[in-house]
């Protein structure tokens, strides 16, 4: 069944992937707050007299958050295959055959993951533990080989 076969790349399940996604969400929110803080500081520097804490424009912040998330996911997946959350949970995104995800696939997969995060739930019922995005882009999420 699921007994560990150390040499075989095993697909990761919903718990690890879900936790990794939560960690990544936190990372993106941290980036966003850093950006916001930077914006506030810049405003303070350029017009200290007429300074007020900028109010958040809902549409603008949503768009920026979307881009930050897509950029973050694409960068991590194409460069190392692992986001911060994936590293924490010991996961890695690989292509169908290659060990890396190409830039285009990474970008599209990131967009889809941000737009339709619920697709991750398909991992639970899929026999090969693929999310909807994995099925579409033929990627896999596997456990990092344990350093033992």
């Amino acid at each position: 069944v699921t007994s560990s076969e150390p040499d075989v790349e095993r697909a990761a399940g919903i718990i690890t992937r879900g936790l990794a996604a939560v960690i990544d969400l936190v990372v993106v929110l941290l980036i966003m707050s850093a950006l916001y803080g930077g914006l506030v500081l810049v405003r303070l520097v350029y017009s200290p007299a007429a300074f007020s804490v900028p109010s958040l424009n809902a549409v603008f912040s949503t768009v920026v958050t979307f881009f930050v998330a897509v950029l973050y996911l694409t960068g991590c997946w194409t460069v190392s295959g692992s986001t911060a959350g994936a590293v924490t949970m010991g996961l890695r995104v690989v292509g169908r055959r290659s060990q890396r995800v190409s830039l285009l696939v990474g970008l599209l997969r990131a967009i889809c993951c941000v737009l339709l995060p619920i697709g991750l739930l398909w991992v639970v019922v899929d026999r090969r533990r693929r999310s909807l995005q994995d099925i579409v882009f033929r990627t896999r999420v596997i456990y990092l080989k344990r350093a033992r």
Partner: protein
Amino acid sequence: VAEKVPVFGPLMRRGVVGLSERGDKWVTQSADQFKALLAAVAVGLVALVLDEMDLNALVRERVDIDVLAADLDIDAVINRVDLITLADKVIEGVDLPAIIRESTNSMTAEVMTDVRTQGERADDVVAGIVDRMLGRDRDNR
């Protein structure tokens, strides 16, 4: 008696005094030499004896070191030592940052491995439950 003889007497007295002076001188000189010789011999002898003896064993056998140690005024010794300087020296010798770094690293690694293993196990548990619910053959994955 002979000293009372005129002319001859003073001469003889002078001779006797000279002789006795010379004798004294000779005696003291030879005594010094003898002393030096004796000292040299004694030193050589003691050295020889010491060479033959195992002093450590002798001390261990004959001296009760525990009693001596019990009598030692260690507080006085400690009072004479500059403890702060000593401690500084000891701390300098111990690479504390490296130890902390190492232990923190191994702790982090342990926690990470633990989290990953637990996650993997949880994945398997969930997969098992779903497989059972869907009535799947669990070996056929």
